[in-house]
């Protein structure tokens, strides 16, 4: 059934072009409709998700069941090498700052509209369903993302993220979709976008955390929270350009590299970073008494630029080591400490 849907349906890239001049910023209402439909419509389907990262491509199938007002259930079917997994996700519009990539929040759409021109560029078809194609364009006119939006239900059927060199970095599309005939009687209203409060940021900075408000690749900080892990407190920063999400986790302490199993080291300028070839392009490094962990659903070049922009202080030099030793000796003999 799934394969039949894949091969019988019209190619997703079968774009019927329209006048590009008419598409300037005309795609944003379509994306807003898609975001609302992603919350308000009930549906069940199967998506494929493919990412191209440092270690090549990774693909998986995801079974999605969405019930308006209750949220989505995401399940990855069992394959020959891995068992079935399941994630119970909250209603994106209720709790998640980003709203998820399938039903972006108003905040994400605002960030998207600030960073890209969103154009309605034509019509296409996904899984046998007629759709409108919306393209997010960079300032130089190149495409950064394409969205296929179902004409009948406004659901987002396919999504592609394109890196700066024109290659697809991430793709997700329904290969099977069944719409719940009865739409939600009580339409779920999307949570109004609440910008990240400056008082919240000031509170975190008063706790000793330091972090940038923006990162290269048009990434803006849209969520920040601190938490407590078994190894100590941490800071969770979420950056997005409206298309991709990059999470930065910051901890205090010294990275115990001897216990990093399954990671391999790379040189970045004058210091070492540890990477793991996962779909989320996991990266860990230490700098300035902090440990940084980056996970991203973003093009590789965007991830690399963001990692380079985050703090990478070199290891302490001879003078720093002497000063630290002197400070410790003073602390030992100081009866008031």
């Amino acid at each position, binding site marked *: 059934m799934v394969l039949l849907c894949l091969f019988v349906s019209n190619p997703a890239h079968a774009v019927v072009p329209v006048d590009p001049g008419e598409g300037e910023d005309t795609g944003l209402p379509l994306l807003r409709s898609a975001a609302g439909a992603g919350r308000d419509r009930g549906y069940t389907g199967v998506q494929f*998700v493919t*990412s191209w990262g440092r270690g090549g491509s*990774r693909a*998986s199938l*995801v079974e999605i069941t969405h019930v308006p007002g209750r949220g989505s259930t*995401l*399940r*990855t079917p069992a394959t020959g090498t*891995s*068992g*079935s*997994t*399941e*994630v119970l*996700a*909250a209603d*994106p519009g209720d709790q*998640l700052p*980003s709203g*998820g*990539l*399938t*039903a972006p929040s108003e905040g994400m759409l605002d960030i998207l509209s600030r960073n890209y021109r969103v154009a309605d560029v034509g019509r296409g078809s996904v899984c046998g369903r007629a759709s409108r194609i919306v393209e997010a364009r960079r300032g130089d006119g190149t495409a950064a993302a394409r969205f296929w939006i179902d004409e009948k239900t406004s659901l987002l059927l396919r999504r592609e993220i394109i890196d700066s060199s024109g290659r697809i970095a991430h793709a997700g599309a329904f290969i099977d979709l069944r719409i719940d005939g009865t739409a939600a009687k009580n339409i779920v209203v999307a949570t109004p976008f609440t910008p990240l409060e400056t008082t919240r940021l000031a509170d975190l900075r008063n706790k000793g955390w330091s972090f940038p408000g923006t990162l290269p690749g048009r990434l803006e900080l849209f*969520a920040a929270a601190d938490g407590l*892990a078994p*190894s*100590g407190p*941490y800071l*969770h920063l*979420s950056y997005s350009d409206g298309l991709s*999400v990059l*999470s930065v*986790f910051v*901890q205090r*302490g*010294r*990275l*115990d590299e*001897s*216990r990093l199993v399954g990671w391999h080291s790379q040189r970045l300028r004058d210091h070492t970073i540890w990477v*793991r070839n*996962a*779909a*989320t392009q*996991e990266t*860990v490094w230490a700098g300035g008494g902090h*440990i940084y*962990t980056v*996970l*991203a*659903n973003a093009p590789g070049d965007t991830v690399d630029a963001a990692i380079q922009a985050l703090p990478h202080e070199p290891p*302490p030099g*001879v003078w*720093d*080591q*002497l000063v630290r*030793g*002197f400070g*410790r*000796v003073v602390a030992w003999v100081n009866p008031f400490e």
Partner: protein
Amino acid sequence: MSHLGERVSALIDGELGHTEREKAFAHLAGCDDCRAEVDALRSLKNRLRSLAPTGIPADLTMSLLRMGEPGGPIPPRARPLPSLRGYGPADNRPPRAAAFTAPAKRKPGGGRARRVRYVAVGVASAAVALGTLFAIGGVDNTPGVVPPVEMFANQHKISVQEPATTVRPAP
């Protein structure tokens, strides 16, 4: 009572107590020798007291004052760290030729060797101190941390709502 002896002088100077003085006077009333001795000693003291004060010669005074001036002939002393000039008070001694004592006989090059030894000891001490500070400062006492990447990954996946790897086994 025996003769006054050494108490004669104390009697003349009025240093005897009341009882002792009464006994001494009673003895003098019957002892001619002691009375004569007291008279002689009293007469001597009176003569000394009546002498005019003798002035100090001016040249002796000036000589004594010059001894307190800078550059005076202070005898040389051995310095523990001769290379560390400026650490102690300024050396105002005159040249060795003007010293009262003859210059001590020293081995040729002995001072230089001692100075080299002092410098070597100082350098070694500084090296040991710096090495100790470097070693102490190089030991990172902060506990090693391994990020809970799986927990972070779950938080990240929720924010993008795209499970790509195992989160929890399905029932």
